[in-house]
């Protein structure tokens, strides 16, 4: 039995009151609930406040570049499919710098959990707009207010054919832990976009702002209905649905394209010089 404590307690570098604390706890619980021991998990993160999360727990970790967590995770998962791979990073990292990898990972349907700490702001660099910042949001970098509409992560994931699309909120910690657990159990890519307060730089989308608007999806909500899911993904403003918005296992994960991966991970496969010899002789 794995317990939440197995993942340890560490000092963090976050502001008191930051939403990252709640997400960190939820992740540990989800790991424990799914029976994943620290050494069985590989976390891959980018750069930002969110991306520091896995440093605050016991796990295998590759903390890479800003925006580039997904390709690193893709490589690692293909090399070693037994690892439970979780990508954890911020909204700026994932949807901004990393936007192209977000699209590609969804298409690839690589088998991993993508956890986005969505505080609708660039936290670590002190408060510029992120792709999910609301239109009109004023920052030092956008002194006349953000001119564009926000990037809609769940709707785009759905449009791209993702098989698991969910939204979390740090103010609903039990639901969050359960959603993450479910995401980990999904085969293929699973997106959990977590609404998270940034107490230092996002004075628009505060904890209270989210609290007022977030509601849990009804018990009879059917996450298998794509069109209903699209409706909920686009629902934003006065009310924001939270939970598993869409779920389906109709798509093959990328791994099935490489049948030999079913046998053993790449590091364990023996170099086959006889085959190389045969291939070489094709050039005779």
């Amino acid at each position, binding site marked *: 039995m794995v317990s939440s404590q197995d993942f340890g307690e560490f000092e963090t570098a976050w502001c008191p009151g930051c939403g990252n604390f709640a997400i960190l706890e939820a992740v540990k619980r989800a790991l424990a609930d799914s029976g994943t*021991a*620290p*050494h*069985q998990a*590989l976390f*891959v993160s980018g*750069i930002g406040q969110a991306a*520091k999360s896995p*440093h605050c727990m*016991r*796990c*295998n*970790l*590759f*903390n*890479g*570049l800003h925006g*580039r967590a*997904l*390709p*690193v*995770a*893709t*490589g*690692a*998962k*293909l*090399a*070693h499919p*037994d*690892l439970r791979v979780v990508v954890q990073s911020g909204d700026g990292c994932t949807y901004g710098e990393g936007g*192209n*990898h977000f*699209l*590609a990972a969804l298409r690839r349907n690589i088998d991993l959990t993508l956890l986005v700490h969505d505080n609708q702001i660039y936290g670590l660099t002190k408060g510029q707009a992120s792709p999910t910042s609301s239109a009109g949001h004023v920052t030092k970098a956008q002194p006349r207010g953000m001119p564009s509409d926000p990037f809609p992560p769940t709707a785009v994931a759905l449009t791209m054919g993702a098989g698991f699309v969910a939204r979390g909120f740090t103010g609903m910690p039990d639901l969050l832990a359960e959603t993450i657990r479910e995401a980990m159990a999904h085969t293929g890519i699973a997106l959990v976009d977590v609404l998270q307060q940034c107490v230092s730089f996002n004075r628009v989308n505060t904890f209270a702002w989210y609290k007022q608007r977030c509601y849990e999806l009804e018990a009879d909500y059917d996450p298998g209905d794509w069109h209903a899911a699209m409706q909920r993904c686009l629902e934003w403003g006065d009310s924001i649905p939270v939970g598993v918005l869409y779920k389906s296992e109709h798509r093959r994960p990328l791994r099935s394209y*490489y*049948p*030999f*991966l079913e*046998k053993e*991970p*790449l*590091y*364990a*496969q023996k*170099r*086959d*010089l006889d*085959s*190389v*010899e045969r*291939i*070489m*002789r094709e*050039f*005779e």
Partner: protein
Amino acid sequence: MSESAIQIRIGGEAGQGLETVGQLLARGLVRCGYEILVSQNYMSRIRGGHNFFSVVMDNEPVLSPASGVDLLIAMNGETVIRHRGELREGGHILADASQVEEDAEDVLAVPFSELVPEKLYTNTAALGSAAALLQLDREIFENLLREVLGGKSEDAAKKNADAFAGGHSWILDNSRPLQGPPSPALQQGERLAMSGNQAIALGAMAAGANFCSFYPMTPSTGVALNLAAQAEELGIVAEQAEDEIAAVNMAIGASFAGARSIVPTSGGGFSLMAEGISLAGMTETPLVIVLGQRPGPATGLPTRTEQGDLQLALYSGHGEFPRAVLTPGTPEECFDLTYRALDLAERSQSPVMVLTDQYLADSIRAVALFSLKDLPETTKPGTETEKPEEYVRYAFDQGGVSHRLLPGTGTHLVVADSDEHTPDGHITEDLSVRTRMVDKRLAKRRVLEENAVPPEMDGPEEPELLLLTWGSSKGAVLRAASDLRKQGRSVGTLHFRQVCPLVPEQFLPRLRSAGRTVCVEGNATGQLARLIRQETGFTVDRLIHRYDGLPMDAETIHAQLD
């Protein structure tokens, strides 16, 4: 190249199957026992335009591209117009009668359309004619055709055989064989007809590379395609990435998790990988990138050749960390150095670059079968440790190269970080740790130096003239030196197969002992010459260079030497 060497040029539009003829001719010649150099010259388009293959056949190794054509195989009229001027005394033009009007004495206008079952098979018929003209063993070519083109269908096999026979007979019936083609070389054991890209892919396979992430880019796509073709048999993940940034980061992730990764690209893609290279440096993750150079800047000349990215390979990626840059000059060296690169990347836990260029990547030569059994074992990461709780990824006490364990292969935890980190891999802002970590990373330079491939020397100990070079210009330099020696001059050569790290003791004495030093490079600014001065203070006397998109050749060297 001997006196009797012959240059065959096959020209036509993109889409006329030149590549097939070129490849078949190359393999057939090698099977017949000849030495060859087959270089490709193509435009950045799929149909039309003007492309050509140059095939030098000889009975001794062919080192350098050369001018002059002895047999011009013209698949269209434009080929005759463009290349007629290069025809040597006694040369012949073999042309498709339906495509050329010319009716000169040296033109053999073959009525291919009458000899082939379908237009599609014209190239095979041309091959038949060429084989006849060159008096090549017919059976060898018939077998080859069957092996290569027979797989598709009975029907296609038959039609190819007929086309070949048609072209062959027509020559026997209507022409005499070519004057003085070289006789086959003495048997030297089994041989291959292989390009640089193919040799790189084969070297990678031999070294157990099993992860290749790539974004297509000329001239390196072939490396990935060669690996992809063997993916199932060898268990290779060959994944086309969404862009080059993804390609390099995927390779790093795969490597971290235990794969042996290789990433082929060209200058533009390599530029995009700079941050990833720095990441490999910081996280100490093995990474091999094959940089197939082409003329830049930017998109430049996508299908031509240049040696303009040496400095890019040396310095790309921010911050300071060790790396190695290998610069093969022949398909054999492509094989050897790729094999070595994959081992070295793991051994030094660093990024290693293999630099080729379009000329080397695409040109085919005869090489001896590689002795796979004799290859040295390669370094491997660890999977287990006795005290998993105590494992730290970046331990200080192991002389730079810390013990690298894979994640998920035991209960130990592996933490790698792109931020400055403590030995256990966690982010730190402790500035004394910083200094020690920089020192630890830079200490790996010693490992790289110990494993550095020395430059290859040839010629007298204290030559009057020393030609130095790197990468694909090697052959041209060897050839020029041999020409000059025949003229009685004292000429030495120095070919750098590795340009980083440079170990001055390996070559400085030779530079100093030469009367005059001339650096030969396929670029405009003399990047190796500058590097040597930077690393040793030694100033090369002169630069011979070329940057028009074509490979360095002996003639260019002679012309600029005077």
